[in-house]
């Protein structure tokens, strides 16, 4: 590990801290309706779609709107991908996307996962990229934030189960948050040399004299929302390791920061909405501690490198001319610290963009992204999903604290009783159930084993990572798993759907139930949710829930692989 490496992590952390409050204040104003500078556009959309923007929806109606919008947009994407050969903006005559991949891609982008089993630059037409994938990049992000805002409203007010209006939250999030932020970020990216064009692909001659086709396209505009919306689906197959998609250290820094901008701001927004800013910062602190633990572990493991390399005389010590450590699968322009930071941030949030190949990390370095996803994508998390995941954990924390002292638990003035805990537990249990059942099936079925490139514990890690990634709506790939089969395309597509909607529904129910409860004033028996004790307890609950559910699988995968690496065995 080097001082300059740590300096990058410190500067990044300070930047996240600096953007939290201004973004949070803006988000409050967007979702309380006081930002109006695109009001005419809003009105036209509401009129065209027959939306009553003043309707305060019951949680069941809010959930129905979310499901209806997702179902229709997913089916539309499926149809366009299947028909792209006959549609315009297809200058390279891309054929129809195969049915299994069209299903998986439609599900994946609808759910903010953006798992890609195809090579973007050789499979998708410009029309598919711009009207379908980019559309979902905006709307899946906006619907995630909408759901988080709905839960915040449920906690903040007493309104008979009414938690806002899904359609206005969706439109306002897209118009006032993601479109303008993406526009500004895309301009910064273009200024740094990221490409943004509709040129035909360019044929270049390499130094060895070989011909190489360089893909072109509107990359900067896709890249901006890919990061800000924690989508992660790259324009190019190499994602942010591609020099056109991540040309300079500044684009690398900005794109890493962009992943955390909205999730960090949401913690402040929540504090403002519930009139307890200290609690918003307490959530931020819990997220930050977990982030710091992850990035420190990944950086340490990668900087230390593989002892087998050292045993064979490879110089793994960092020096002025040698990055040292484990550089396999890493972009030499970014090195170990920026790769470990990017891998941690992209899996803390449900982004899934990568600037290095996680499969090439050391076992413990690769364990960090996997654990980040398995903790529930709540370390700042996906846009919206990070906040509501953390709030569910906060509710479980006060419930456990209430059990300890024998009092009815309260969370921000709302009593937490059996129905709230039922919904919170549904939310918590569905996630590991989907991951572990699909992983277990794939580890024994011939169709599941057929896709593996590595055997032993590393092979299990590849399967476990794939299902964790799609169910957590992350979308990053560990690589090494051939996912372009009917078996994997279909199951991974279903994993994204269950990981998104089967968790969102109980969370919205929880929001509705809390919105039915009256707000009781704090008393001497109320467990304070602004203290370091609360932060420690919250982190403990998150780690214990994660450890209890995933430790057996992790011990058979990356942990045993690490121990065997020490004994000189590789997989």
């Amino acid at each position, binding site marked *: 590990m080097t001082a300059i490496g740590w300096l990058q992590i410190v500067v990044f952390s300070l930047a996240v801290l600096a953007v939290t409050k201004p973004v949070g204040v803006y988000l409050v104003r967007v979702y309380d309706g006081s930002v109006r500078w695109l009001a005419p556009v809003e009105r036209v959309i509401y009129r065209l779609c027959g939306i009553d923007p003043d309707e305060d929806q019951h949680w069941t109606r809010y959930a129905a709107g979310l499901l209806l919008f997702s179902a229709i947009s997913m089916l539309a994407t*499926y149809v366009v991908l*299947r028909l792209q050969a006959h549609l315009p903006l297809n200058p390279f005559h891309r054929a129809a996307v195969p*049915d299994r991949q069209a299903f998986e891609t439609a599900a994946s982008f609808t759910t903010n996962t953006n798992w890609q089993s195809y090579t973007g630059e050789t499979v998708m037409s410009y029309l598919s990229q711009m009207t379908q994938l980019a559309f979902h990049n905006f709307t899946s992000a906006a619907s995630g934030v909408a759901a988080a805002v709905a839960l915040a409203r449920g906690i903040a007010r007493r309104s*008979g189960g009414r938690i806002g209006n899904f359609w206005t939250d969706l439109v306002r999030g897209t118009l006032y948050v993601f479109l303008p932020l993406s526009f500004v970020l895309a301009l910064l990216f273009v200024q740094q040399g990221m490409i943004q064009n509709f040129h035909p692909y360019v044929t270049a001659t390499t130094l060895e004299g070989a011909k190489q086709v360089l893909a072109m396209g509107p990359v900067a505009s896709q890249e901006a929302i890919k990061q800000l919306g924690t989508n992660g689906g790259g324009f190019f197959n190499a994602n942010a390791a591609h020099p056109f998609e991540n040309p300079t250290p500044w684009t690398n820094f900005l794109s890493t920061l962009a992943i955390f901008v909205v999730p960090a701001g949401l913690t402040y927004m929540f504090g403002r909405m519930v009139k307890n800013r200290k609690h918003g910062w307490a959530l931020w602190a819990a997220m930050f501690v977990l982030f710091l633990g992850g990035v420190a572990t990944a950086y340490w493991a990668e900087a230390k490198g593989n002892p087998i390399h050292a045993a064979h005389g490879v110089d793994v010590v960092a020096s002025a001319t040698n990055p040292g450590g484990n550089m396999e699968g890493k972009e030499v322009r970014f090195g170990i610290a920026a790769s470990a930071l990017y891998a941690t941030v992209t899996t803390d949030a449900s982004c899934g963009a990568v600037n290095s190949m996680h499969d090439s990390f050391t076992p413990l370095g690769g364990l960090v992204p996997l654990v980040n996803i398995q903790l529930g994508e709540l370390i700042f998390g996906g846009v919206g999903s990070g906040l509501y995941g953390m709030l569910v954990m906060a509710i479980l924390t006060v419930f456990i604290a209430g059990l300890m002292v024998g009092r009815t638990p309260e969370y921000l003035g709302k009593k937490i009783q059996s*129905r709230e805990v039922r919904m919170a537990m549904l939310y918590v249990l569905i996630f590991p159930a989907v991951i572990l059942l699909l992983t277990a099936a794939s580890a024994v079925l011939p169709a599941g084993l057929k896709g593996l490139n590595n055997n032993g514990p590393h092979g299990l890690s590849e399967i476990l990572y794939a299902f964790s990634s799609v169910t957590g709506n992350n979308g990053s790939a560990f690589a090494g798993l051939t996912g372009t089969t009917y078996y994997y395309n279909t199951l991974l597509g*279903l994993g994204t759907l269950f990981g998104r*909607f089967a968790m969102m529904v109980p969370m919205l*129910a929880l929001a509705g139930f809390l919105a039915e409860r009256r707000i009781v004033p704090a008393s001497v028996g109320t467990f304070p949710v602004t203290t370091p004790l609360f932060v420690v307890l919250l982190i403990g609950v998150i780690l214990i829930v994660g450890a209890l559910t995933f430790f057996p699988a992790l011990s058979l995968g990356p942990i045993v692989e690490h121990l065997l690496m020490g004994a000189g065995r590789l997989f």
Partner: protein
Amino acid sequence: MLDVVYILLTLAFFGLMVAYVRACEHLGREGTGEEDRP
């Protein structure tokens, strides 16, 4: 041919989610007796 299967699979999933919403609503009412509606 499989297009029909995938479209039906999508519709079945979202149909299941609608039923899930109703089940959660039911779970919220069932036997709590604690609702304090405004």
